[in-house]
Each structure stands twice: as structure tokens, then as C-alpha cells.
């Protein structure tokens, strides 16, 4: 336990190992944007008299195309009606007309029921191009605004500690770690299981940010306190290590309780928030890791101005110590 700080470059390396695949996926495939950010319509349609095996995506695509919605993406699912399992389809198309959406909707539904019998429109969302573009811009602004506001608050909260800005910046770096990790995972999940980035994803991301900072603050608060009661023989490294060890039980226990509630939500909490919960789960684990193994460790790197040593021939002190 007393080597947590010494091993800091290993922790940074671990973070990179986890983040880089996501970043690669992000660079190649990007994010799979949902209709909130890219515009479009999402139809959730239940075929009351059909069982799951009886539908065919190509046929549904053709029906949508005949009604003016070419290139629809069709995903077949199932749902329950009075205890029976019936076929459902989730169809993504371009958005409905802004001036006259109702006839379009009616035409599609009648065409579907002409082919498959009675249909139930379970949900229909349509987002126009202007609003989706504005949402995207505001989402980026929201994330940046959150970062800046937290940086300012942290600097104020730690103004009595030496170098208050450092705490803010290290917390933000840990936060960026979590944002990158979550974005990377979202990109990979978009490729693998077709997960889409929607308004709820943004919610999850901002929550991850705030919880990450939450964790970081708890660790920093201990460092601040221990620095004030510093014994002359103690080095900064030792204080940070000591503070991490002291807050570790709390970090793990809080992580566990949140983990329990999220798993309960994931298992029982309904289809529509499943992605939100999944991202929260991943993000919260990352947030706890980054607060202990990145944010606090970065303070040490900064205190020792270790970047002066990075470009010399000898290995960084952390790596050296573990190799020995």
C-alpha cells in the first residue's frame, strides 16, 4: 500500500492502455449519433398479431421506402401484450416533415397494417435538423461549461492550500481521462452493438464528470488536511500516498453502493435507460480510478516537476523503482 505513489507511471500506463483502443475507434468510426444530435425519426412499432419470427427487415424497409422514407434502418425486437410475446420493430428514418407531419405518419402506419395486420405505435420521436444541430453545439458547450465551472470552484475551495490552481487542473485532467474513456467506450459499443449517442448519453457523461470530480475532491481534501498537519520529515509523495490509503476504504465503499444501485437499474430498470446506466457504470469506475491513480498522482508529478526528467536518458523514477 505504501507504493501507490511510487508506481504512478504504471497507473498512467494502465489508463493509456484502456483509453487508446477507444480513441482509435473514435478516430476511425467516430460516434454513432442518435436522432437527438443528428436529426431523424425513431419509430417503435408493435405488430399485435405477429410473433417475433414473422417479420422481415427488408420488407419493412421497403414499406417505409414506398411511403417516402428511403434508407430506413430496421431493428427487430419483441414486446409483451397481455402476457403474449409479439413482434416489434424499431425503425430509424429521416425526420418527419416540419410543416405537415401527420399525413406522413398516418400513411406509414396504414401501409404497415395493410401488410401485417393491426399495429401499435409505441413511441415515435422526430427531431428536425436545426434543433439537432443546436443541441450538438449546446452539448459541447455544456461539457466545457461544466469543466470551467468546476475548475473555478475547486480553485476557490482549495485557495488555502499551496498552489490551489494545481488541484483544479489535476481534477480536470482526471475528468478528461474519464470523458475520453467514456467516449471511446461509446464509440466501440456503437460499432459492436449499435449503441447510439443521444441526449441521455450526454446526461450520463455529465454525471460521470461530476462524480469523477466528487471522488477527486475527497482525495484532495485529505491531501489538503494532511499538508496542514505536515511533519517536517514527510515528503509530498508520502503525504499523497498516505492520503490515498486513508480515503481508499471510502472510495471503495461508495463505489460499491453506487454500483449496487446501478446494477439494480441495469437489471430491472427498463429498456430505455439501459444505455444511460451502462455508461454510468463504466464512467463511475473510471472516475474512482482516475481520482486515485491519476489526479492525486499528477499532483506529485507537478510538485516534483518531473517533466524535467522525462526527456533525459534515465527512466522516470517510478519505472526505475519497480524495475529494481
Amino acid at each position, binding site marked *: 500500500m505504501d507504493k501507490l505513489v511510487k508506481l504512478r507511471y504504471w497507473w498512467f500506463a494502465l489508463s493509456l492502455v484502456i483509453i487508446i483502443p477507444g480513441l482509435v475507434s473514435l478516430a476511425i468510426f467516430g460516434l454513432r449519433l442518435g436522432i437527438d444530435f443528428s436529426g431523424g425519426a425513431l419509430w417503435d412499432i408493435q405488430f399485435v398479431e405477429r410473433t417475433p419470427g414473422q417479420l422481415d427487415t427488408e420488407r419493412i424497409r421497403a414499406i417505409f421506402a414506398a411511403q417516402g422514407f428511403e434508407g430506413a434502418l430496421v431493428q427487430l425486437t419483441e414486446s409483451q401484450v397481455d402476457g403474449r410475446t409479439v413482434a416489434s420493430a424499431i425503425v430509424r428514418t429521416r425526420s418527419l416533415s416540419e410543416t405537415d*407531419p401527420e399525413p406522413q405518419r398516418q400513411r406509414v402506419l396504414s401501409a404497415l397494417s395493410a401488410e401485417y395486420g393491426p399495429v401499435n405505435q409505441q413511441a415515435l420521436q422526430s427531431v*428536425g435538423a436545426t434543433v439537432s444541430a443546436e443541441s450538438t453545439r*449546446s452539448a459541447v458547450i*455544456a461539457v466545457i461549461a461544466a469543466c470551467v*465551472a468546476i475548475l473555478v*470552484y475547486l480553485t476557490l*475551495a482549495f485557495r488555502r492550500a499551496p498552489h490551489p490552481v494545481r488541484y483544479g487542473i489535476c481534477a480536470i485532467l482526471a475528468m478528461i481521462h474519464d470523458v475520453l474513456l467514456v467516449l471511446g467506450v461509446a464509440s466501440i459499443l456503437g460499432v459492436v452493438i449499435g449503441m447510439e449517442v443521444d441526449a*441521455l448519453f450526454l446526461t450520463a457523461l455529465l454525471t460521470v464528470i461530476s462524480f469523477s470530480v466528487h471522488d477527486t475532491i475527497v482525495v484532495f481534501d485529505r491531501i489538503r488536511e494532511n499538508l496542514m498537519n505536515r511533519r517536517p520529515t514527510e515528503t509530498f509523495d508520502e503525504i499523497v500516498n498516505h492520503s490515498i490509503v486513508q480515503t481508499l476504504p471510502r472510495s471503495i465503499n461508495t463505489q460499491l453502493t453506487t454500483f449496487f444501485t446501478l446494477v439494480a437499474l441495469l437489471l430491472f*430498470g427498463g429498456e430505455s435507460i439501459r444505455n444511460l446506466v451502462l455508461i454510468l457504470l463504466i464512467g463511475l469506475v473510471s472516475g474512482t480510478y482516475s481520482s486515485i491513480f491519476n489526479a492525486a498522482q499528477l499532483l506529485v508529478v507537478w510538485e516534483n516537476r518531473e517533466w524535467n526528467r522525462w526527456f533525459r536518458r534515465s527512466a522516470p523514477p517510478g519505472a526505475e523503482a519497480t524495475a529494481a
Partner: protein
Amino acid sequence: MRSRDIYSLIFILLVAGIALSIVFAPEGRWLFNRDVSVRLGLDLRGGIQVLLRAAEPVERSVMQTAAGVIERRINALGVAESVVQLSGNDRIIVEIPGIDNPEQAIETLRGTGKLEFIDTKGEFLAPGTIVRTTGSPNPIALRPTATVTGTEEITSTVSEGPIYESITDGKDLDLSSVQPPQIASQSLTNQFAVPFAFTGESARRLEQFTAANIQRPMCIVLDNQVFSCPVIQAALIGGRGEITTNTRQDAEQIYTQLKYGALPVPLQVESSRTVSASLGQGSVDASIVAGLVGLLTVALFMILFYRLPGFLATVALLLYTVISFALYQLIPVTLTLPGIAGFILSIGVAVDANVLIFARLKEELRRGRSLNASIDAAFVEAWPAIRDSSVATLITCTILFMFGNTFGVSLIKGFALTLGLGILLSLFTAMVVTRTFLHVINPLPFAQNPWLYELKDAPGMRHARETA
């Protein structure tokens, strides 16, 4: 026990009592008949939310008028708990919960609403008659909304019949000229009059028509529905005139129709979200199960891990849950699925404050302080971390709320609201409730047992036991 703790305990019990009386209020009615029933969001009870935007650039005041018109039209549909909210300068958010065929309702709301004066060639038309006019020969605005089901074909009731000549166009009505009802100027009896004025082409045509048709009827038509057919008393010079009625009530009605009857600008459906009621019910059931399982697991974990303080924190957590729901019902907060997720997540936050405090409590006990001194020290030392982390989360909640508000994404708003409320409330339950509970049990002999605090030995307690 100090007297301060007794007061705190009484206060907590009082708050708990009030919260319980709200949550279990009979028929959702509380003090002075206030409605405290649970409000479920569109995703949980079904309904529609649309973001309407002006089709052309307009001023904010125009949008305010439009929002007013829509609100009146929704009220006419008889839907409770609907929301009409202006957003930014050119958007209106409309939410109608629990309605069949929500898309058609929106179509009705969106109808531009046309005010016309028509030439009936001397005929009196009964108020309420639907007519075709030259300005609007194929009325769509007044299709019945409540009775048509999804698959039924809509047939217009007025596809045939005469087309009446429109004298004026509603666009030319000068809204600033429409004044609240006043006692009619040229009347000796108590008649009421609503002044109005048209501008441009409409004013010229109205003047010509009224001059040629004195003592003959002229019908006022709103959205193709005859409103009334007053008799022309005098030529309306410059398109300026007044509508006279016998009762103030009629005059008020005409006034609102003239002033707000027509949407001042066509509105486009920029985004819409519809959820069926059955899908919503499934989500409600799922969330209740998830909430219970989550709460139970956390309670078990806290008790097994932290023993006595964990048990007290669990009691505080139950109180937290009850107060949360009481607040949701009182404020009221509309519960959405992400909103419930936000609440369940806030349970984790509420527990975190306790975890921080208990960790400190153990440290203090280990150092040999008495239980009483350790409790106070633990709260003082844990406070900065709890405060700073709460503020950080509140900052993001505020930003999320603003984002959700601008784009009518009520789902995000719900999440931010319940999470934010949860954080404020958890400060109360952790800093006041758990602390009071700990102080209250402190004098009890059984509480002076290190095992209850997950410790092998606590020197301060040994001392307390020996002196007792």
C-alpha cells in the same frame, strides 16, 4: 443527551411526519386541498411532447401571444397537467400527457386559426356552424380530435356547401386596437362593445362592404366556425369598428377571440416525441422494482459493513426516500424514467456522505476519543469534502437542467432535478439526521461497544464503560 439533540430529534420526527402525510395523503389531497398526487412524465404515462418553432422570424412578444393561444386551445381539449412553455425567442414547448392520438391534437393546436369577417348575403348563420370561406375553403383546423382513432379515415364534415366570401383576412387585424370591453359609446342601454381595427386591404374592403350593407348581418368566423352574426349598424370607416353585445360575458369572449383567437404566426413541428401509455406503464413497474432492489442492497451493505452506524444511516436513508417523494409531490416534480434513475443514483450520493463520516468516526475512535467527542469530530472533519463534492455535482446539475430546458428535452431536466434535489437533501439527512441519531444513542450503554463500530478496541469507550 444534550437538549440540542432533543430539539433536533423532535424536528426530524416532525419533518418525517409531514413527509409521510404528503406521500400517503388520501386521494392525493393535502392541507387546503392542495394537489399532491404523483406526477408522471410523458415517458411513464404516455403522451406527446413537441417543440414548435415559428416558420418565419418573429419577435418574442408574438411568440408569447402564440403560446397563449395554444394554451387556450389545450384547455379546450380538457387535458390536465399540460405544459406550454416559451423557449428562447422562437420556440414553444408543448407537452400533453395521457392523450389518445396525440399527433392529431398537435395538428389542431398548430392550426393558424383564422379570423374572418364573411359576407353571407344577408343570411344569419347559427353560432358554431362550420363554413367554407374563400380565405379557407378546406378547413382542417376543426377536425374532431377526441373521437378519431388511429386507423379511421378522417372525413371533413364540410367538404361540400357554399363557399362564403371573406371580406377580411385575420392577418390584417391590428391587435393593439382590440381593447377590453367597455360600455358601448352610442348606446343608451347597458351594452358592451369591443373595439377593433383592420389595416391595409382588409380595412378598405370592410369599409366598402359595411357601407353597402347597413342593417344587414355580417358573420364573424374563427377557424371556419361561425362565432356570431351581428347586424351592421354603420359603415366602418377605415376598417375601424366595434362589436356590441348585450352582456359583459359575451363581450369578454369576443375580446379574447379577437385578441388571441388567431395564431399570429404559422408554427412548424421541429421535434416531437410520442410515447404510448402501455409502454409507459411497463417502465413504471420496472423502475419500482429497480428502486426497491437498489435500496435494499444498499441497506444490507451498510448494515453488514458499518454495523450500528450503518443501521442508523439506513434509517436516515429511508427518511431520505420519504422526504424526496414528498418533495416531488409537493413542488411538484414530474417524474420521468431518467428522473427516477437520478433519484436512485442520489441514494448512492446520500450514502457517500455517511460513508465519509463513518470512516472519520472510526479513525477518531481508534485514536482513543470518547464516542461523543468522536461523533462531533467526524462530522467537522468530513464536512469540507462533503460540501465541495456536493457543490461540484450541483454545478453539473444546473448545467444539465439548462440544457434540457432549452431543447425541451424534459428527460434530461427530470434527471438533473431529482439528482440535484437529492444532493441538497442528502446534506440534511447526513449532517442532521444521522448525527442526531448517533448522539441520541450515545448515552445508551449498549452503544459503547467497539464491535458495533467494526473495531476491535476503542480506548475511549473502555473508559466510558469503566466510569459508568
